[in-house]
């Protein structure tokens, strides 16, 4: 069995926590939106890494049909228990997508593709697995008859929602088959006011440090950072005290 096959139970617990559930369903909502499916007819979607079928629930709500693939039997058991609408498949997408060409109208994958970058076994080669995934996905989505099919790859790119927020920022890798459509706009690029569902975190105390990744030169923070860096290089550094970085006030 694959090491993902028994994706550790902490992950399972995590995946059932209410916050993660909320984020997952929000992300699937957005992902389906990005697909730009026609509204007047039902579509068949592939959900790569469907897990317990949370993203599938949203697809069902939208009136579309889906087939889910996941590598974790534990998560699929949860999905079976929840009696999700879609059909489920236990498969490793790193081995390719076991579907015939042109079967799906679209594919979504919420927080799954990054697992392909892991090498859990000696025999795993992330680039190879990614290639296998994308090349077979390409054919599974593609209609062989269309002339565009001859185009040698996906078009698309990254859509970033809430690029200015550390917490709500989400990356969507949008790939199109053929020449359809321009890349959708990310959310919250012009106004960041929409992220009020979540608690706000301010980091007042480190605002200088975060401004450009570096502190203001000659400030106490900057000196402390520099000392820390020198310490890590194994150099002899005086200990930090309350006098470190303190200004020498002029005597009268």
């Amino acid at each position, binding site marked *: *069995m*694959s090491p993902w*096959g028994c994706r550790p139970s902490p992950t399972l617990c995590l995946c059932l926590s209410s916050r993660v559930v909320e984020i997952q369903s929000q992300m699937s909502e957005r992902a389906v939106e990005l697909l730009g499916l026609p509204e007047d007819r039902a579509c068949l979607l592939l959900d790569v890494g469907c897990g317990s079928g949370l993203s599938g629930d949203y697809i069902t709500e939208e009136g579309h049909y889906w*087939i889910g*693939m996941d*590598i974790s*039997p534990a998560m*699929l*058991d949860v999905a*079976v228990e929840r009696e999700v609408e879609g*059909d*489920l*498949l*236990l*498969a*490793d997408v*790193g*081995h*390719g*997508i*076991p*579907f*015939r*060409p042109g*079967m799906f109208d679209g594919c979504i994958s919420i927080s799954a593709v990054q697992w392909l970058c892991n090498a859990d*076994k000696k*025999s795993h080669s992330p680039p190879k697995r990614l290639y296998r995934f994308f090349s*077979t996905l390409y*054919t599974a989505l593609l209609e062989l008859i269309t002339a565009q099919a001859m185009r040698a790859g996906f078009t698309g790119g990254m859509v970033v929602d809430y690029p200015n927020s550390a917490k709500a920022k989400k990356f969507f890798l949008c790939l199109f088959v053929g020449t359809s459509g321009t890349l959708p706009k990310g959310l919250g690029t012009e106004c960041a006011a929409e992220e009020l569902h979540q608690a706000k975190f301010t980091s007042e105390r480190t605002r200088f440090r975060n401004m450009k990744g570096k502190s203001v030169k000659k400030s106490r923070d900057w000196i402390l950072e520099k000392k820390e860096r020198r310490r890590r290089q194994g150099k002899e550094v005086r200990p930090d005290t309350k006098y470190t970085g303190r200004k020498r006030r002029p005597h009268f």
Partner: protein
Amino acid sequence: MKLLTHNLLSSHVPGLRPGAASPCASSFPAHSALGHPSELPPEPIPNYEGDEEFLRRVHHVLLEVEVLEGSLQCPDSGRRFPISKGVPNMLLTEDEA
């Protein structure tokens, strides 16, 4: 697992030609394996789009029949993929991958 999904599948074992699973409209072999050979003709009948009775039966076989236990077999290699609790196990072993 629904038979419709079975119809969409194709073997992903490397070295086999892609689309090695059964050809289009292959619900028929699968459904006869279920033991209802009388319900559907072996070939789609002409003008099946208008024949609601036929469409209903196809819909029943494709979307309402759930395979819970059993196995899928690749017609080319004979490789079997077991189905348990309605979920087919398509994981490949080390040397197949």
